[in-house]
């Protein structure tokens, strides 16, 4: 018996999923976050194409099974490292995508470069399935178990190791897997020298410099490092982000968004803190001298402190700690600061504590390592001021880089949560960058209105105020109506600093455009409309997507509307390029690419070698596998998103949900044979009860999850991860069944159709990864899940009609 197969398959699976998650980190660092979707679709493409490849070369591959496995595993290891190095060297520039169609070619090149390792990994697994058919159930178990281990393992590994070392580890695992067939009879050592050489190269000779990140030159960190005399003081890596602290002694950073033009102050000495090479936050030098911080009184974000005496402040997103210092400067009696990344807290509170004046040791300050939403949800405190920090960089915000980044900080539910944690008369303050025409500023107003209405506030307009400088706006939402005296304070504060008021209750138009003169007062007009009788009509007619973001559709930074795209594209040559939010375009491009490349790499080869559809398969079985491919990924992608809120971070969610689905779908698949036997005995459809199970569980979850998540948000991470796995288990168990049931039928009725079944299913998965995200942006996760359930039902009908 070929016992080597089990550990070898486990290692390959673990390494492949580990690599997938690693790549998501890498691409978030060197490019931007939206590539996560591309990687999932890539991995699936690799699996689909290898299925086709194995189907085509089955006889030859089976004859040299062990050798082919070894070679493929070795190729996996080599391409893993090679793609890591080469993929970052493709001159793809996402920012140029509206100017230069060639960028789509570069995007396709990246896609193909990263395709290779997944193809070889999948070939190993596929070979094991094909050539050791008698062991298929156990192999399947080790495959999925390995994948689950890999997903969780790599996240843990990234807490202790650099991304580069984690890569070496994963490639090392693949090499070990490649050597395992040699231990089984007939003993073959042909590849051992090569394997040894690869391992030695990997561990000893591969220069670290080759593996270093090649960050886009347009990210904030790259730009900062171009400046004379800047240097990196420290770099701290974890799955939550790569933190880089930069010092610039010759040309100070002077980061002071929204600083008044009439100020007499300058920003004090700062260190820059970048997360994944972007999202500038600052550490501010403080030696106890408040005079050095004078500029803090002259930015738009200072407004709420004019309305409050010695407030108890909650800072959401402490970052480099400057907002905490800001609160203290303005006389806060107590500051609770929430920061997701423990390394960021350590930087400010420990490593650079001398620089920040031991800010976090101040008795008035309490720092909490937590996800903002979860922290607020479980807090019994009420705050006089809740401040959401401006942590995204202007460049990123301006270019629509985050269009696809889900953010649970700015949803209707989030704002409700914040507002409910205000003391009577307390304020929620949110500062954003200004764009012309306004996008996020208006979306925030729409979202706040919705939140206030859900809380039963009948006149939300009485509680809001907005001021603006030339590049930032600060929005206040009060727990209570804003009084005439407070309106005077707002006007005084704004006008004495040459800021404009963009909205306050009963504001005359004449007050909207006095200092920073706009051609059109869209922010004022839009806010009035959004707070008026028919906000929906305005939202519909506005050429940017400014409908409120919700937890179901948490794309606060998505402003793209197809209806305005053509006009904007035509205007790009006249300076209108900034109107286009290209993050959405990249996702669309990825979908088109996946559709085309999937067809070329999976379906085309199949149709060449096996042009005839085998008898006994029927078109309905083709549809069955296609629908399953779409539906499975839709549910998986939607649940990854749903769990982000609960597990606090996209990467945790991907790792936990992915491994949960893999492992429990594996169990389901293992049990499917028994179910088929029983259904056959009863002369009943085996698929229909499974699909009913899937639909029932998913619907219950749609109703139950928001409640559960809110209730248990405050638990420790390991407990929440365990809970998530328990929740995923029954759904995934059932979802693992329809595919092997279909495959078993095809195997008995039309064996020649098996490669087609794999190919069609694989193709549907490749397409559905990006399609699911697009649908979620357009219609929300609930809609994606409901659609998936309909697809499952349709698949069940296809299956039963055939019978």
């Amino acid at each position: 018996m070929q016992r080597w197969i089990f550990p070898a398959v486990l290692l390959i699976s673990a390494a492949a999923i580990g690599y997938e998650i690693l790549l998501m980190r890498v691409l978030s660092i060197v490019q931007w976050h939206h590539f996560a979707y591309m990687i999932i679709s890539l991995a699936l493409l690799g699996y689909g194409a290898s299925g086709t490849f194995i189907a085509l070369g089955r006889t030859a591959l089976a004859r040299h099974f062990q050798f082919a496995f070894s070679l493929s595993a070795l190729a996996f290891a080599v391409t893993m490292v090679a793609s890591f190095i080469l993929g970052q060297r493709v001159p793809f520039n996402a920012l140029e995508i509206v100017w230069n169609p060639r960028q789509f070619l570069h995007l396709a090149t990246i896609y193909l470069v990263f395709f290779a390792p997944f193809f070889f990994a999948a070939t190993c697994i596929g070979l094991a399935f094909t050539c050791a058919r008698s062991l298929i159930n156990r192999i399947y178990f080790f495959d999925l178990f390995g994948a689950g281990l890999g997903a969780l393992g790599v996240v843990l590994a990234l807490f202790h190791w650099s991304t580069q070392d984690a890569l070496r580890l994963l490639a090392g695992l693949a090499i070990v897997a490649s050597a395992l067939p040699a231990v089984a009879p007939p003993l073959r050592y042909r590849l051992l020298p090569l394997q040894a050489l690869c391992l030695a190269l990997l561990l000893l000779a591969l220069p670290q410099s080759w593996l270093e990140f090649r960050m886009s030159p347009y990210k904030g960190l790259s730009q900062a490092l171009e400046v004379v005399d800047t240097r990196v003081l420290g770099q701290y890596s974890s799955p939550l982000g790569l933190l880089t602290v930069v010092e610039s002694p010759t040309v100070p950073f002077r980061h002071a968004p929204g600083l008044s033009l009439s100020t007499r102050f300058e920003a004090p000495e700062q260190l820059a803190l970048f997360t994944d090479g972007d999202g500038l936050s600052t550490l501010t030098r403080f030696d106890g001298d408040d005079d050095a911080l004078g500029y803090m009184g002259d930015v738009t974000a200072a407004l709420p402190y004019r309305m409050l005496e010695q407030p108890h402040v909650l800072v959401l997103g402490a970052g480099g700690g400057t907002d905490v210092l800001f609160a203290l400067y303005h006389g806060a009696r107590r500051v609770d600061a929430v920061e997701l990344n423990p390394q960021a807290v350590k930087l400010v509170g420990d490593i650079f504590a001398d620089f920040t004046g031991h800010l976090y040791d101040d008795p008035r300050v309490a720092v909490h390592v937590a996800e903002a939403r979860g922290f607020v949800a479980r807090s019994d405190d009420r705050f006089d001021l809740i401040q959401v920090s401006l942590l995204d960089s202007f460049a990123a915000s301006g270019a629509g880089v985050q269009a696809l980044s889900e953010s649970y900080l700015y949803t209707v539910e989030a704002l409700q949560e914040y507002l409910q944690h205000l003391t009577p008369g307390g304020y929620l303050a949110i500062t954003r960058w200004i764009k012309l025409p306004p996008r996020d500023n208006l979306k925030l107003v729409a979202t706040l209105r919705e939140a206030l209405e859900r809380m039963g506030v009948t006149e939300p307009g009485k509680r809001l105020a907005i001021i603006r400088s030339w590049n930032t706006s600060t929005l206040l939402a009060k727990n209570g109506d804003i009084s005439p005296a407070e309106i005077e304070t707002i006007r005084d504060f704004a006008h004495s600093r040459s800021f404009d008021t963009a909205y306050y209750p009963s504001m005359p138009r004449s007050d909207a455009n006095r200092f920073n003169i706009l051609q059109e007062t869209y922010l004022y007009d839009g806010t009035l409309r959004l707070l008026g009788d028919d906000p929906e009509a305005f939202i519909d007619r506005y050429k940017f997507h400014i409908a409120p973001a919700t937890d179901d559709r948490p794309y606060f930074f998505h402003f793209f509307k197809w209806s305005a795209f053509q006009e904007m594209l035509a205007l790009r040559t006249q300076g209108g390029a900034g109107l286009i939010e290209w993050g959405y375009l990249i996702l669309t491009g990825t979908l088109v690419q996946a559709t085309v490349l999937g067809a070329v790499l999976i379906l085309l080869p199949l149709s060449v070698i096996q042009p005839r559809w085998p008898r006994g398969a029927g078109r309905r079985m083709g549809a069955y596998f296609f629908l399953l491919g779409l539906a499975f990924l839709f549910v998986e992608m939607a649940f990854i998103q749903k769990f982000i809120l609960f597990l606090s971070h996209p990467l945790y969610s991907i790792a936990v949900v992915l491994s949960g689905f893999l492992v429990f779908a594996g169990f389901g698949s293992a049990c499917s044979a028994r179910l088929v036997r029983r259904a056959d005995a009863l002369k009943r459809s085996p698929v229909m009860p499974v699909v009913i199970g899937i639909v029932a569980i998913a619907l219950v979850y749609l109703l139950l999850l928001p409640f559960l998540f809110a209730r248990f948000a405050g638990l420790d991470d390991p407990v929440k991860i365990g809970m998530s796995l328990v929740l995923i288990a029954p759904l995934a168990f059932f979802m693992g069944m329809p595919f092997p049931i279909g495959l078993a039928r095809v195997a008995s009725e039309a064996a020649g159709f098996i490669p087609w079944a794999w190919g069609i299913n694989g193709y549907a998965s490749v397409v559905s990864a990006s399609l699911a995200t697009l649908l979620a942006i357009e219609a929300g996760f609930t809609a994606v899940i409901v659609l998936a359930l309909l697809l499952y039902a349709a698949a069940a009908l296809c299956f039963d009609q055939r019978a």
Partner: protein
Amino acid sequence: MRLARTIQRSKWAAVAALLLAAATASTEQEVDEYAEARSAMVAEIGRYARSAGDTAEHAFDSRVMQALAEVPRHEFVPDDQKRVAYENRPLPIGHGQTISQPYIVALMTDLSEAEPDSTVLEIGTGSGYQAAIFSALVENVYSIEIVEPLANDAKARLERLGFDNVTTRLGDGYDGWEEHAPFDAIVVTAAASHVPPPLIAQLKPGGRMVIPVGGRFLTQQLLLIEKTADDEIVTRQIAAVRFVPLTGEH
């Protein structure tokens, strides 16, 4: 024998002359090629020209258009971008920097309202293109670049191309250039979280400062800062393009 040699020599001479002629022709052709692309670019910008602030279309200042028609933009882009140097779009010039879209250059230059006797300060030399455009329009241009290799290249390039009234230096633009202040116009092409107060101080009464706001390839809007004759500061935010964000209006 001598005759043969003479004939041979003259033959070589003829060949050489021919080659030379061909070479010259090709250079001329190249120049012509760029000239054609350049005038197409200028024509395109002319079509798009809009007044900043009101809705009536008008042309950019003819002197600005003339400068655009004269300055060889292809000299200011990396070799691999020369082919597209005259397309109306921003191009990468290395070090994470860009040469602005010609339309934006025209708009910014136009907004600065620089006169032939003006002294202009530029923060962010980049490849030197904007400085070269100003060179044709004003008396003196001072330009500061923070990225060393770019500063060196731009200095050499501007000297080589004979833009003698441009003075460049490597350094921090935040503090302006005190010894040449005050300025009639200041353009800031480098991103900043706020407007450096020293720059406002170095603006002449009646002077104008223009700052593009946005990412490297996507200008969102322009900030125009005017200092009135009695030293008051007026700022305007100008969308680079006329775009009505509501359907069904106008």
